[in-house]
């Protein structure tokens, strides 16, 4: 009605009445559930004045929002909106994490044991270990690589492919021809394991046949399901820790 009568923005108490942007103090004053900013600490005036002022308030508000709308509607994204877009020169001005030294999260021992049970019509094996042992290191390694690549080629998921620690055997000959002679031979046994998951039971015998027919001489092949015991056999036991635990309990 009388837009020029009162400049409500000047009156500090009424400041919250207008939709102001980025003004945190006002937000605290008005409270959160108040989109129109109408719930204000009213100064003590008479009813009549109050209603007039409230009208003016509403007018100013609409004008302000209209102005706002006009600005935004003009398509000028820089003015009136305070979010920094990528085109704005000050975009990302507050970032600092890239300056800090990189923190590597502490890795704890993973005891991942995921086993799939045969389900329904389509039977699938869970984790299967293909273990290859031999005295000849090169041969067994090459065979393990061949099996790994074969599985990749046939799109069978290979969980991991690892080596078990080598076992050394000493062979002693005792020849008794008057003087005892001892001939020593040192044999090292190497073992490689390829772990597979998701082998369907229709395809399993075919895979087995392929691997068996391409088995080199001197390599023992063993296919078995992965168990916790297999997993534990890779880990070293700590006798001191066990002693301390025994003492505690």
């Amino acid at each position: 009605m009388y837009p020029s009568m009162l400049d409500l923005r000047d009156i500090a108490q009424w400041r919250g009445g207008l939709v102001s942007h980025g003004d945190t103090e006002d937000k605290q004053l008005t409270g959160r559930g108040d989109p129109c900013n109408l719930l204000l600490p009213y100064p003590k005036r008479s009813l009549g004045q109050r209603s007039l002022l409230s009208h003016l308030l509403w007018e100013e508000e609409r004008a302000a929002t209209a102005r706002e709308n006009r600005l935004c509607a003009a398509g000028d994204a820089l003015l009136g909106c305070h979010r920094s877009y990528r085109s704005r020169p000050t975009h990302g001005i507050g970032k600092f994490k890239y300056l800090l030294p990189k923190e590597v999260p502490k890795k704890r021992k993973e005891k991942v044991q995921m086993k799939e049970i045969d389900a329904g019509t389509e039977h699938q094996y869970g984790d299967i270990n293909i273990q290859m042992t031999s005295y000849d290191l090169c041969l067994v390694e090459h065979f393990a690589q061949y099996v790994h690549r074969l599985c990749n080629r046939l799109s069978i998921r290979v969980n991991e492919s690892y080596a078990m620690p080598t076992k050394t055997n000493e062979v002693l000959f005792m020849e008794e021809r008057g003087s005892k002679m001892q001939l020593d031979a040192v044999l090292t046994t190497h073992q490689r394991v390829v772990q597979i998951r998701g082998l369907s039971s229709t395809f399993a015998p075919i895979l087995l046949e392929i691997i068996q027919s391409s088995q080199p001489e001197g390599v023992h092949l063993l296919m078995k399901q992965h168990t916790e015991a297999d997993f534990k056999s890779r880990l070293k036991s700590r006798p001191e820790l066990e002693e301390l635990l025994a003492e505690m309990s």
Partner: protein
Amino acid sequence: MAGHCGARAMAAPLRQRAAAGARGVCSAAAQRPWKLFGAMCLLRLPRITQPLEKVEEEMAALMEQIELEKSHYSDHEIRKLEEEEQLKKKKESLYDEDEARGKTVIMAQDLEEKWEQKFLQFKAAPRITDADKNNDRTSLNRKLDSNLMLLVKQKIGNQELWLLPQVEWQPGETLRSTAERAMATFLGDHIQAKVLGNAPYGIYKYKFPRAIRTENNVGAKVFFFKAFLQSSDLSQAGLKADHLWVTKKELGDYLKSEYLKKVNRFLLDL
């Protein structure tokens, strides 16, 4: 590898077909016009590796030479070299040092000579056995480097044919046990064979000649299963009919062409 791809592609639709067939027959045995047979393809795995081809041999020799030139000396070789140097020094210098030590040292050279003698004493078994020379197809010792399959002469209808051992399916048993029964009837009960999987490897269906064909008896379907022979000793088994152990290439001499085609699809020959 082509055989393997074929078998793999076959296995998936076959599974469904076999399942459908089994389910269908269980419910109404009289309706199905096809007779079902289970056949067993018994394989004896090769005992020795196949000889290398010329290219492979040359490659292997080249790689060995390269590795030899690139490799470091082993403990034994270092010891040998050191002892040779000591020998030279002893010859040049006086003999007092030898007597002073009074040790009997086993030289690396002596060890090598001992090992060589032992190696000469060792004799490897021959790759080509007697059975090969005689071309005796009934023995298992033939062709140690390739797969051998069992073929049996069976009477079907009026003809005597060479087939993989097969037996008719009885309602209430799985096809795999039918195949095992087929194996047992022809080779005796105590056969150590490992059947691969529950799904058949191949199927051959044929219609009976018009004379015998009736509404309920159109033809027959033969489901093939594979098994590996574990033990090589078959003397205990009672071989009733004529049997042969043949390789894949020799199959053509005995089997009929259609049958042969279906059988060849699932045979791996690596």
